[in-house]
Structures are given as C-alpha cells and as structure tokens.
C-alpha cells in the first residue's frame, strides 16, 4: 500500500520560553516490510534540522534558542508497505518453543528480554500466559502470540486518557484499562517472561473507512514485535486485536517507549504548556482523510 502521514504537533506556552532543544523520532523506517519514500520536517519558529542515525532509526533534532511562545512541528511522510498477509510467514502447527532456550538466542537478544523501567518482568503476568496457552489453536509460538493478542484485547479496555506514559504495568493490570502504550508494555512484559524476545514499536495505523472499530492512539500508534522461531520479527497489536500487516507504518522500535519517544524536548521557562497533536494517515488508493484526532 502507498500511504501518507501528516503529523502536526503544536505546543503553546503560557509565557515565552527559550533555549528549546528537541529530538524527533518520527521518520518511518525502511526495512523488508516497508519503504519510506519521502520524509519532511518543518518547524515554526523556523529552525535548522539536524539528524543522525542509530541502528534502529533516524533521529532529527533542532534548537530554538530565541524566546518564543509557541512551537509547531510538522512531519510529512510517504511510505510504501509490503506485508499484505503476515500469516503466510507463520508456523502455526508444531511446538517450536525450544528455540527460545538456545543460549545464543537469549544472549544475542538480551536487550529485548531484559526488564526495563517501563517493562518490568512480573510473576503476576503468568496467568495471562497460561490463559493464552489454553486458548491457542496449537502449541506453536505464533498461535500463542495470536491468542495472547486476542486475550489482552478482550480483557483490557482501551480508554483514552486513562493513563500517562509513566503508568507502571502492574497498575494497568489492576485497573484493566489503558492506551496503546500500556497494551504494548503489558504484552512485552508477558512475552519477555516467556523468554520470547520482543520489542516496542512506535508507528501509525491506516484505519481506512472502518475507523470506528480501530484505534490508532492519540498521536501515533504503538504495538509490539516478537521474534518467531523462524528468525523473523512479526508485529502484534493487542489494542486492536490484529497481527500487523500493510496497514501499519513502523517508525522505530526499542526496548520500551523510553527508547522511541516521538518527541523529546527540554526548554528554559515555566513548565505550563498546552499540547495539540493532529495525525492524518491517508491512502493513495482511498484518498479521503481518515484518522484525524
């Protein structure tokens, strides 16, 4: 699919601020599932945009040193996505969990198996793993992950604004609700405890015409990728009960949200600010505007 994203972030400050330094992690990645064709970033007040590349994606950054009372950041991207049917790549029959016991695997993917600030590894998640195992169609890892995605979607309510980026996983478990980051962090926590290397993914979801039934988050979406015994990473979206396909645009992955915040900034001035985010994902095949918030 050929998709376009327009992502506008507007900050309004109560009083003028200065020395604002910002990092932007919003450029869609290019990998075997998608190609980022165009990416543009502009700001108001105008700033020189710099960038550098980390192994998992590009980081743009800019400074606005002079006093300013607002800051608008506009990102525009065009992406070609390829993975129409993710199920083709799955082994859905045999028990292949021994793969995760190989010492080389656990050592190599230590980043995606270790607890982090936002993804602790908790005994209390075992119950979800057991239930998912019971629901799964087969002992295959992929079946387990599909069942787990399904389980979390049915057990937890998507409630916008119910949590913040810092809400801990155990609180999400208690309250049985959250936003897409919470669904992702919870599923990461369960998978890592089951020794399945898994990573947090930030990105966008093209919701098409059926937008009432799917959620793509307030600004951008988040889901997870798990390493399957075949050696490939596949995406699972517990918020929407979906396996990730060509309607998903991946930006970056990391150990948790903290590695891939879409925007991170620091400035001199009072903390009080208003934030407004406007994300539009459109398809060239179906050019109507969808997914605005």
């Amino acid at each position: 699919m050929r998709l376009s994203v327009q992502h506008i972030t507007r900050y309004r400050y109560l009083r003028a601020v200065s020395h604002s330094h910002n990092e932007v992690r919003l450029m869609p990645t290019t990998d075997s599932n998608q190609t980022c064709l165009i990416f543009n970033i502009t700001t108001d007040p105008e700033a020189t945009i710099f960038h550098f590349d980390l192994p998992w994606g590009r980081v743009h950054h800019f400074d606005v040193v002079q006093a300013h009372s607002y800051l608008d950041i506009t990102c525009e991207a065009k992406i070609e996505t390829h993975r129409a049917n993710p199920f083709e790549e799955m082994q859905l029959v045999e028990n292949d969990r021994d793969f995760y016991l190989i010492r080389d695997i656990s050592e190599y993917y230590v980043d995606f198996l270790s607890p982090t600030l936002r993804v602790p590894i908790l005994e209390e998640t075992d119950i979800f793993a057991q239930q998912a195992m019971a629901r799964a169609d087969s002992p295959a890892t992929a079946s387990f992950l599909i069942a787990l995605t399904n389980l979390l979607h049915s057990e937890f309510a998507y409630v916008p604004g119910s949590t913040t980026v810092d809400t801990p996983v155990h609180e999400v478990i208690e309250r049985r609700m959250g936003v897409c980051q919470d669904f992702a962090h919870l599923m990461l926590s369960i998978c890592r405890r089951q020794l399945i290397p898994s990573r947090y993914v930030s990105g966008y979801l093209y919701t098409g015409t059926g937008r009432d039934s799917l959620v793509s988050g307030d600004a951008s979406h988040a889901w997870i990728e798990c390493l399957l015994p075949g050696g490939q990473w596949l995406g699972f979206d517990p918020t929407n009960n979906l396996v990730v396909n060509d309607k998903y645009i991946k930006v970056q992955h990391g150990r948790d949200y903290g590695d891939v915040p879409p925007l991170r900034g620091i400035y001199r001035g009072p903390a009080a600010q208003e934030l407004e985010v406007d994300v539009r994902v459109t398809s060239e095949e179906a050019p109507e505007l969808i997914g605005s918030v």
Partner: protein
Amino acid sequence: MTLFDGYNASSFYDEMFDGSGEPRPHYRRLFEKLSQMSTSDYNSRCHLADLTLVNQGITFTVYGDEQGLEKPWPFDLMPRIVPAAEWDHIERGLRQRIMALNLFLHDIYHDQKILNDKIVPRDLIIGAAHYRREFVGANPPGGIYVHICGSDLIRDSDGTHYVLEDNLRCPSGVSYVLENRSILTRVLPNLFQQLPVQPVEYYTTQLLHNLRSLAPASRIEEPNVVLLTPGVYNSAFFEHSYLAQQLGVELVEGRDLFVEDNIVYMKTTRGPKRVDVIYRRVDDDFMDPLVFRSDSSLGVPGIINSYRAGNVALANSIGTGVADDKAVYAYLPQIIKYYLGEEMILQNVFTYLGSEPAQLDHILKNLDKLVVKATNESGGYGMLIGPQSTAETRAEFADKIKSNPRNYIAQPLISLSTAPAFVDDHFEPRHIDLRPFILTGKDGITIIPGGLTRVALRRGSYVVNSSQGGGSKDTWVLAAEPEPNDQKTSSAAVSTHSQLQNPSTQTQAVGAGSPGWSELAQ
C-alpha cells in the same frame, strides 16, 4: 633515637624495608638523610606543609559529613620511591591495558566483533549500567574514548603488582600528584639532592596538547578548550580549579554553556564564544538532560548531539564507564589477547563474577574471606571487606548479591604493601596503593612517572580513598642511575653564567647554516 625506631612492617611487603629490617637499595640515601633529622625538625616541616595546604585551600569535600564541607587534603611528607626497573614494568603494563581498552570501547560501540566472537558475553556489556546505546555508531575524534585514565595498583605480600581497577570515567587525583611534589620541594628540598627523581609537572602541558588536538578540523588553529565541573560543591572541585589554572583554560559549569544549531557556546561578558574541546569532569548521566537524565541541572542540553556531529570534542568520551565495570575487568586478559595478541603484563586480581552461577555460589559461601564490590560503584562505596566484616553486614550483602548477582564481583583480599607514614613523632607502616595517570592522545600514550600514592592513614586500614580517611604521598620514580661523572652540577654552572651574558653574543652562536634559518630562505 631516630624517626625509624620501632618500625615493624610485620608480614606485609614494605616498600622501604626488606624482611630483615634493612632499607632497600633505592631507599638507602633517603634513609640516611632522614636518620640525621630530629623529630622536632621533621615535625616542623610537617606543620609547614599542613599550613600551606590549609592556606591554599587544598581541600576535598566529603559527602554526608556534618562537620562542614571541606577537609584539608592529608599529605604524608615521606615520599614513596619506585626504582627505574619496577616503573618500566608498570609503564609497559599500563600502556598495554589502555590500548586494549580503547580498542575494546571502539569495537563495542561499532561492530561488536568481540561480542560476536563470544570472547566477552554480550549480555554482560549490553546489560551494563554504563553502556550507552544512544552512542552506538558515533565516532569520537581520533577514535579515542579514554583520554585520561587513572589505574589503581596494589602490591601483594610477595611484591607482585596487581591492577585493582582502571578508572575510565573521570578519574581524579592528578592535582595532588602535582601539588604534593611542589610542596615537598619547598618543605624538604634537601631530600631531592642527589636522587634522580623524574619530573611530573609536564603532565598539564601534555594534557593540553592532547586536548587541543581533538578540536574540530576547522578550529584546530586556536581551539577554545574548557574544563567542565559540576561546581564548587563537588568533592574534586579543588582539582578542577587547579587543573583549569595549570592548563590555562576556562573552568565552566553547565550553566555557562549552551547549544545553538548544534554548536556549543560559553557565555562571556562579550557575548557567546564557541567552545571546541571540553575536558569534562561531569559523569555521562549528568552531561545532557536531553539525552540522559532529564532532571540533571549540571549538564548542557544538546551537547551530546553536538559531540556526535563532531562540532565539539569531549574528553573522556561518552560511554567509557562500560569498560571500567568491575565485571568487564575480569575479562581484560581475554580482551588484551583479542586485540593485541599479547599476554597481560600487569596482572589482574582474581575475580569471581556474580553473573556466573558457579562463581556466585563460591562468593556466597566465602563472604568472610572475600572482598565484594558493586560492579559500577567507585570510591570505596558499595564494598564489603569480608575478613573485617560482621556476620550482620555479611547477611545484608548476601541478600543484595542474590537480588542482583550481575551487580557484584568478589576478589580475594590482597594484603596491600606498606610504607612508612609519620604518626605523632615517628614512622609507622601504613597500607598504600598507587594510581598512575595515563594520557592517550592522537600521537600516543603518555604516562607521567609515578602517580598518586594513596595511604590509609588509620592503622590496619586498607581503604585509601580520600572520601574514607585516606591521605597521599609524593611518588618518586627514579631515573636509571646516573653515570659516575655527574653532569648535573656542570650544566647548572653554565646556565648561571649565561644569565648575565649580553644577548648579542648568544645570537652569534646561531650560524648562517643553522636549520631554522636555511629553511626559511628556501
């Protein structure tokens, strides 16, 4: 009665006296000189030295001490002497270590060959507290990560030197090396006579040279070098201030700097001035609230990205702490072998890793015999000295180790060597270590002869850290013994003569064919 009456080093290796109580050959001249001194004379020299230290405000800060922030730096006048051959061995060993460590750091922040080849376990590095994944792929100038290293050496009862740790982040203490020497030459000048003590004061010249060479290519002619300090309340503030003065560079705090369009500037009374090289004495975590800890007020937002872009140089580089992790230390023999194809020259102390289940078991069973250390702490904090501990503290440590085995290592207790330290009115043996300072620049490695000899001033104590009641000594590395017909006096005589000569007679000495002029003519 002489100052050395009753001196007894018992079973330890004493730097000055051999097993039979005779002074070792390299100490003999010093022994003779000091034996002629009366207690009251020596005492008055000590008093003079103390007064100099207090008046000059040569102090360090003890955290959590109610008595006030600063304490004068305890300085023991009696120098520690290292003979030429011994120093040669130490120097070769240190060169080897720092070369391997720099190659190691470059590798783990780029191709990770040593991890892929399974020489060092990947999880040990990737899981280390000081591994900076944000810095993977970045290229520090000249490929150098550690520009200034301070390695801690100790000496066992059989006389063997071991390296206890290589401090690769912001090692401190070099100011005391320079200051101790300067005080000792003032207070006890006659001790230096006829001993070929190697000079140390060129340290700052070499450091400045190295720092300047790190500047971005467009700024290499007149680079602006600064020293970044956490501020006046930092325990090593005296050193920061002293070094800035000796280097002739500005001493800045985070609030003096800002970044605009990826360039670092300092605020001066004539407006912003670009900064090219930063000798930073602020830890990674506090360098940049945009990248690391956002609650840090010591750092400069945007400075890391400016560094990554090559617009400013940092010494030491970011992420060096991963290589002075005490668990990584245990792999140094393999690391040296891997990059240099050599055997380790200066030995490590045998180290048990909490991360290895079998070794963990050994640690837990032998807590009363071992020294246990947290892998990412320094300054003697987070440490258990088994043989000197109570059952209660051992139980406490056992719990800590079990809850996070990766975070702990253990080593057998090495009985540190002793050297005479002046206590009340005579010399007594006190445990010492040695921290040499190793500079790595674009054109090579420089080690000033000696380093900081730290001394545990409390009787029987092994803890030499200044934060925990340690003091220091001047360290004399002797040059190879001079030839019998000593040139020293004659050259001094010549220079005295030339002081009063008319300059015109000197220029005659430069012939028309001297290299300086002929090159210009071409």
